[in-house]
């Protein structure tokens, strides 16, 4: 395995609150220059030794769901790793071929179930791209806010679980407390805590309830304190750094070759964020930075996630300030459900309501691919329509699937304890890997 030369990690930071934290992390790295340890030379064995095959998962505390890895061990050193996926396969893509476009929204909740709102948004954007439908600015802002909240929620889980995997159990509970506050906000907005199913083709299910923005602002003001606390407890911790630095180094080119996306790709130093590279929704209106790691080890991936949460807070604050008024849905009642009072009083709206519910929004024949920058990486939907309200084929590009494909390359030569650290730093979710 090629390990890059020791370098000082550079995480691009602009906000003053974070600068201190990352500067500390960087300073710690400088103080302890990173010696890229050569992989242990194969020992000259005099005795014929057997290798042991260890099944890690599908039910194991650190495989986050139902991933199974068949590890071939020489002592505790992994000599080969084979991820076995499919334990959570539900045939979502096939199901989509029998549902109207709106009916599939709840199924997208079950892809990355740690950030359901972002999945909803990515899916409807793909369908809307095929339809050539533009939604009003308020809807775009609302969707972007949903995405960023989902990102924070997912990263909180990712970082908490990473700490948990490394034996730092306290961080998990701290991040979960914050997640709980986010879930309360989700519940107020969408009516559900986990399976939000908030978006519709051409809009969202409902507008913001009264006082919600104020509550969100309050969350945004207090939440960074928790990140700082986690920073204090974990980021500069000597054991945590020893466990993560130079472990699971994923070089740039390899990351690109395997199709790794999201924070894992940026941890390897590739500055690629779809929100910047191909801005969608209203991301052009926001000022935010894309944090990038330099070495591509577990520690960089962790730092990138920490920083992305801060950037999401920045985006959300701007969105709260700039949130435009106006309608929340596209004014196209052939696509989106008309208001209830009109349905009950007017003929035309009643027909629209009937058609949208029974047949689905009419999507012209054609095909479209749209991918969004989700918490786990690039979540893409490839929709092929032959007209009508049901997709002819829907292909989902789950970021976790591609991210996990790099495991055989990464795990080789590491210890079992590192396997856990690497899995934790990859922050995958099997729902979207197996689909």
């Amino acid at each position, binding site marked *: 395995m090629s390990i890059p030369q020791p370098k000082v990690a550079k995480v691009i930071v602009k906000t003053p609150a974070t600068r201190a934290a990352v500067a500390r992390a960087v300073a710690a790295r400088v103080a302890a220059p990173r010696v890229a340890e050569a992989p242990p030379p194969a020992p000259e064995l005099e005795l014929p030794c057997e290798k042991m095959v260890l099944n890690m998962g599908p039910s194991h505390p650190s495989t986050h769901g139902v991933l199974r890895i068949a590890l071939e061990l020489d002592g505790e050193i992994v000599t080969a790793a084979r991820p076995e996926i499919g334990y959570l396969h539900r045939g979502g893509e096939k199901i989509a071929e029998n549902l109207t476009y709106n009916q599939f929204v709840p199924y997208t909740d079950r892809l990355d179930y740690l950030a359901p709102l972002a999945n909803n948004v990515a899916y409807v954007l793909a369908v809307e791209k095929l339809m050539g439908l533009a939604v009003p600015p308020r809807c775009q802002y609302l969707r972007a806010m949903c995405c960023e909240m989902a990102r924070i929620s997912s990263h909180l889980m990712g970082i908490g679980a990473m700490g948990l995997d490394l*034996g730092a159990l306290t961080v998990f509970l701290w991040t979960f407390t914050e997640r709980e506050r986010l879930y309360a906000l989700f519940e107020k907005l969408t009516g559900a805590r986990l399976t939000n199913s908030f978006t519709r083709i051409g809009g969202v299910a409902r507008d913001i309830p009264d006082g919600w923005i104020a509550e969100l602002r309050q969350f945004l003001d207090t939440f960074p304190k928790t990140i700082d606390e986690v920073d204090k407890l974990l980021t500069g911790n000597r054991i945590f750094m020893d466990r993560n630095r130079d472990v699971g180094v994923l070089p740039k080119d390899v990351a690109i070759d395997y199709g790794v996306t999201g924070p894992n790709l940026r941890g390897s130093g590739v500055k690629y964020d779809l929100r910047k590279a191909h801005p969608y929704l209203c991301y052009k209106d926001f000022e935010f930075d894309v944090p990038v790691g330099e070495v591509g080890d577990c520690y960089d991936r962790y730092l990138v996630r920490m920083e992305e949460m801060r950037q999401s807070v920045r985006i959300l604050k701007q969105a709260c300030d700039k949130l435009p008024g106006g309608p929340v849905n596209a004014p196209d009642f052939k696509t989106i459900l008309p208001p209830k009072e009109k349905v009950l009083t007017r003929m035309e709206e009643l027909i629209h309501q009937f058609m949208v519910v029974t047949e689905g929004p009419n999507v012209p024949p054609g095909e479209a691919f749209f991918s969004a920058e989700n918490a786990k990486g690039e979540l893409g939907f490839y929709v092929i329509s032959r007209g009508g309200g049901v997709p002819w084929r829907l292909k989902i590009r789950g970021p976790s699937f591609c991210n996990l494909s790099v495991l055989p390359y990464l795990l080789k030569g590491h210890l079992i*304890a590192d396997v856990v650290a690497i899995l934790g730093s990859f922050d995958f979710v099997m729902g979207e890997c197996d689909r």
Partner: protein
Amino acid sequence: MDPILIHLIKIVGVVGVLLFICAYIVLAERRICAFIQDRLGPNRVGIPLWIRKDGSAIQIGARWALGQPIIDALKAIFKEDFVPGHVNKFYFWLGPMLVMAPALMVWAAIPFGSTLCGVPMIIADVNVGILLVFALASLGVYGIVLGGWASNSKYPFLGGIRGSAQLISYELCLGLSVIPLFMQVGSLRLTEVVRWQTEHLWLVCYPWNWLPAIIYVASSFAETNRAPFDLPEAEQELAGGYNTEYSSMKFAMFFLAEYANMITASALMVVLFLGGWHLPFVPVSGGIAVGVAHICIFLAKVCALALVFIWVRWTVPRVRYDQLMGLGWKVFLPLALAGVLITGLAIVAGWSPS
């Protein structure tokens, strides 16, 4: 009174108090980790005084869950004691016993008070006290190795291997780190160590003992398999390690032994560095009141140190297997040797009051 009877009373008393503290230190751990993690922790079960006809109970200390240890023990006893078909039954049964027994036996040589009614508060005041303690304490790992091996399953097997490797590495540092103390005291007898500290300052007060003290604390974390050195168990890596296949009371034995070992390590730390039962301004000898006070002082110090063990566990991540070994052999061992050398110089220079 018959000396055998006195010894029996002492043994029953020590084991009883030790198990009592073990049970309540588990509760303390749960409450403290809840505090650290912004949770409530156990807060329902008190000590029942009376059960009303409608089934509700009058209980005390429910807020602090003082009855939790009783409930936990009942649960452990009444759970199905499942023995998987693939295990080696004899060694599978022997494992938990071998872990628990040494944890209790070690207390034979630890002075837990001065004298009470003219009876020395130590069960066996042997002249090789510390050697006996270390010899017995290191037996505990055989239980872990046996449990891991007899489970005939891969994760426990790895846990057992880790346990043995870890113990060998840290036993050495532990032993070396206390040598400076005995160079100053001039006896391996633990009562002598405490007596020396009552006559001079506590051993931790001398700067040349700070390095051994730090090494001793870190090594005893490794020795007792507590986080950050809980590698043989390593829930997130080995899914429970050596105790994966155990259930019911056999698991509880492993579980309790960990806490018993933790208390033993704290007690040794108290005896060796923190003056044992001695506290300034408390008379060194006296009547029953003073004797009881000494025991209480000792227990208070032990509990305070046990709280440190708990605090550390919920704060830091777990170290890696090879890093643990590296720390033991490459850092602690040379440092412990340096500690011996420094203390030797201090004695030669006449700084040490012995």
